[in-house]
């Protein structure tokens, strides 16, 4: 009975998914009925969360069933180009991410949104569920038009979510920048599809798959895709919108954007480079690798000097996206050198990291949301000591922190480990220089990972540990039940994948089998993963966890039994310094100081140093992105200049206008002659 049901579900997976997407739409619209009622939020978001869960289950079932793909054509869209949908392993994997992380974020949102904070809850619900639905459609789209429609709907709905507190000028500015870059990126993607169709002028993905492109055209398409999807993913130098927009949004929305929306860009990049393009060149791999690693390093360095907790996390997203793109690049590099197994390994790492990042970044953004609600503070310099006021949030944040810092036995480590493993095989690449330089990438990756740990220690330490830096923090309250539920869900995800990486590797392998025809070594054992060969390298998060827990437990018992000293609570010692207070702790700026010192060339810094005799000395430092000044401002200036030049044309004098039309006439007449 159940198996029969399961098999029908599997056969009509895509239809069910479509139904669920429609359900999101319905949930969103239902919120419009009672726009200002909070009850709507408390009821609808859990329903949305349930839908997410069902999506994840359906995607998981599809991946497990090993089907090739399911396709469908809807009677909507352009007359000659109806909406095509297709569910295959790649889209199913990303739907899985969407479902799993989305479920946690939605249930958290149910407890998070309030009346009177920007957009009314009902409208927020509409935008939120539209956002979810459009992301799902992006993943399922099988023609360029539907893809673009869903892609831009995603951008638009998220834009409205970002600007929900639009009374604040910075938020408006962030929203504008976000939508602008998203739009420019979308134009690039559109162009990319235009190149990809390869003379068939059919914008169905199937036609693109069978198109044969010259190397030049293929490279053009790849570069356009890189620009377009890179802009969405926040690859340096198209990243400028990200640290503005993510902090501006309400925290669950930041979580969605960072955790899920960036993944759609990864999906798009994979879809174009591995599925739609029939050839790949190793230079692409190198480019992607270099760009990815640079973004990773750049993001990590900038994250280390941030003073706003959400900006810090946003930069950390740039870092993680960089790691994912580096994995994709490495995979392309291997694949073009016919090292398919290693390509599968690298791709697997990228995919698993996508999933992991979705989990821990959402988790962390949600905790910042709770902190924000409890303290009304985003500035790290005014937080501190929240672990005592908000134990739930703090402990969940600790899981996220450890996971994102890439520490075993949590999930962040798994993907970084896989990626480092794949770097080990770069000497096999038959291109001189490349095989010498690429191993250095592993060092950059290691540096990034270690910097990420630095960043996260800063984040967690400054927000949750130490003494409260402001008196008002004393009345911070812990997250409510629904919020906790969401946090726990995501934290459990982090732990589970860290301990049982197979849970993520199996679906990822289904994807690599589809894209590369190869997957890393499956192990039957639940204890180990050994992607290439057990002798080569193996890892077991479970044993690590059990080992640490076991040793800690035994030690604790032994110490308890043998060394049973009492514990006294005393004042802080601090080398006996008596005037100790909260302001003497390292601030966010202080913690970032070594990074500023070492990577000074990356930043554009402005320091206000107090004069020696000042009665109330004040030290301030402003850090800006060099790339903003180097790339974006010149473009803006150029446009402004052109606009000024053009403005002369409309000078107000009728005679001059008449002269224009006269000259036009003459010129055209000469042209006709």
């Amino acid at each position, binding site marked *: 009975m159940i198996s029969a049901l399961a098999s029908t579900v599997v056969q009509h997976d895509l239809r069910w998914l479509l139904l669920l997407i429609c359900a999101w739409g319905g949930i969103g619209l239902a919120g419009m009925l009672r726009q200002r009622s909070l009850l709507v939020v408390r009821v609808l978001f859990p329903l949305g969360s349930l839908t997410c869960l069902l999506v994840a289950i359906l995607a998981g079932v599809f991946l497990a069933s090993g089907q090739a793909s399911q396709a469908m054509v809807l009677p909507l869209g352009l007359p000659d180009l109806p909406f095509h949908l297709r569910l295959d392993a790649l889209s199913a994997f990303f739907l899985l991410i969407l479902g799993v992380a989305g479920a946690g974020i939605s249930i958290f949102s149910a407890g998070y949104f309030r009346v009177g904070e920007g957009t009314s809850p009902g409208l927020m619900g509409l935008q939120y569920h539209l956002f979810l639905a459009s992301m799902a459609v992006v993943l399922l789209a099988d023609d360029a038009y539907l893809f673009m429609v869903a892609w831009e709907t995603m951008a638009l709905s998220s834009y409205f979510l970002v600007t929900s507190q639009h009374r604040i000028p910075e938020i408006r500015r962030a929203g504008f920048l976000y939508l602008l870059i998203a739009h420019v990126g979308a134009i690039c993607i559109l162009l990319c599809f235009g190149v990809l169709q390869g003379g068939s002028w059919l914008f169905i993905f199937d036609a693109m798959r069978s198109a044969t492109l010259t190397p030049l055209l293929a490279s053009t398409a790849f570069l356009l895709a890189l620009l377009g999807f890179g802009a969405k993913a926040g690859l340096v130098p198209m990243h400028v919108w990200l640290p503005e927009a993510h902090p501006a949004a309400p925290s669950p929305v930041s979580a969605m954007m960072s955790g899920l929306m960036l993944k759609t860009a990864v999906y798009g990049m994979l879809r174009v480079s591995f599925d739609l393009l029939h050839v790949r060149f190793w230079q692409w791999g190198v480019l992607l690798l270099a760009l990815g690693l640079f973004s990773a390093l750049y993001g990590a360095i900038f994250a280390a000097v941030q003073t706003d907790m959400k900006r810090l996390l946003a930069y950390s997203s740039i870092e993680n996206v960089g790691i994912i793109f580096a994995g994709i690049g490495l995979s392309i590099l291997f694949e073009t050198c016919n090292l398919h197994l290693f390509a599968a390994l690298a791709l697997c790492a990228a995919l698993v990291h996508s999933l992991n990042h979705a989990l821990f970044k959402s988790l962390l953004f949600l905790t910042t949301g709770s902190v924000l609600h409890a303290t009304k503070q985003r500035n790290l310099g005014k937080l501190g000591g929240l672990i005592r006021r908000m134990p739930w949030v703090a402990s969940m944040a600790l899981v996220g922190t450890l996971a994102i810092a890439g520490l075993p036995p949590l999930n962040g480590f798994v993907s970084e480990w896989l990626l480092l493993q794949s770097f080990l095989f770069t000497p096999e690449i038959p291109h001189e220089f490349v095989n010498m330089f690429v191993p250095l990438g592993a060092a950059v990756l290691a540096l990034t990972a270690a910097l990420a740990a630095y960043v996260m220690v800063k984040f967690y330490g400054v927000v949750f540990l130490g003494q409260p830096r402001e008196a008002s923090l004393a009345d911070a309250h812990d997250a409510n039940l629904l919020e906790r539920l969401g946090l726990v869900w995501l934290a459990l995800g982090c732990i589970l994948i860290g301990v049982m990486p197979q849970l993520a590797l199996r679906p990822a392998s289904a994807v690599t089998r589809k894209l590369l025809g190869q997957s890393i070594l499956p192990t039957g054992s639940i204890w180990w993963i050994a992607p290439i060969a057990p002798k080569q390298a193996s890892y077991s998060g479970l044993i690590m966890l059990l080992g640490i827990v076991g040793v800690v437990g035994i030690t604790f018992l032994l*110490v308890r039994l043998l060394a049973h000293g009492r514990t006294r609570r005393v004042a802080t010692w601090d*080398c006996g310094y008596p005037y100790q207070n909260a302001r003497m702790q390292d601030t966010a700026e202080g913690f970032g100081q070594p990074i500023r010192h070492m990577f000074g060339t990356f930043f554009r810094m402005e320091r206000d140093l107090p004069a020696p005799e000042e009665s109330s000395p004040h030290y301030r430092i402003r850090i800006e992105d060099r790339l903003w000044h180097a790339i974006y401002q010149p473009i803006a200036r150029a446009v402004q200049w052109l606009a000024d030049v053009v403005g002369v044309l409309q000078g107000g004098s009728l005679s001059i206008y008449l002269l224009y039309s006269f000259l036009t006439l003459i010129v055209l007449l000469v042209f006709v002659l």
Partner: protein
Amino acid sequence: MRGITFIRQFGEVILAIAIAPLFAGWIAQCRAWMQSRSAPLVTQPYRMLRKLFSKDAALAETASPLFRITPYVLFGTMVLAAAIIPSLATDLPFARAADAIALIGLFATARVFLSLAAMDIGTGFGSMGARREMMIGFLAEPALLMVLFNASLLYGSTALPSLVDGYRAHPTIIDPSVIFAAVAFVMVLLAENARIPIDNPATHLELTMIHEAMLLEYSARHLALVEWASYLKLFNYACIGFALFVPWGIAIHGSDGGGVLALSIVALLGKLVVAGSALALIETLSAKLRIFRAPEFLAMAFLLAVLGLLVHLLLGVR
């Protein structure tokens, strides 16, 4: 068969826990000799541990559970690391749980916990120590990874036991890259274990200290565990070094029997004695660096490791 390997595994861990303080004591003694000071007993660390364990703990009012749990976590990770590193034999059931990269991860876990705990109380020293520790960490990790990369390129594995096995399988090959890697490794070891020229384990001078600054608020059994964990860390690093560069005397896969085990214990002790005196010598000969010179020092280590890698790739010894 399985039983024996588990017993061996267990024995190795116990041995590590037992002799790690001895190794620290030995280094301290050597240092004192070399600096013409009267040396403490080689068992001084044990005495200190015993004293600390017997005391009542004084815990700052502001300490959170994280602060109290950290010593145990530190100790746990280091013990686990000791279980993974093939110090006596390569046929370790636990070793499959983590290769060299995971080992670095494990050390990083310990470092992050210690730094978090240091920030927990909310003192100026604590957070300063945490900051510096993390800084050293992110500089040392890439260098260490390059060293391991080098080794794994030689023997086609990142699993430490396989490295040792591989080395034993081709004992005649000594790759020139190993020399670079070894120097780099020693530099990382010094930095990671709070040794001169990066840090000084014997000072509480506020401007210079790193590791000690993080421990200021610990006392009694907590301090004992933290100290023990740092002895273990030093011991582990030494064992990693042995496994990578001087794996003689480690019982490889399939070589069972009491004799082999005894021999390997002797070999380990011998290597520790030599390594300890060498470390003491380095510490005696070098001066403590300013904290902002530390990046240069570690960059040097990184450079050496990369050079080793390139030399290996260039000479193509496989």
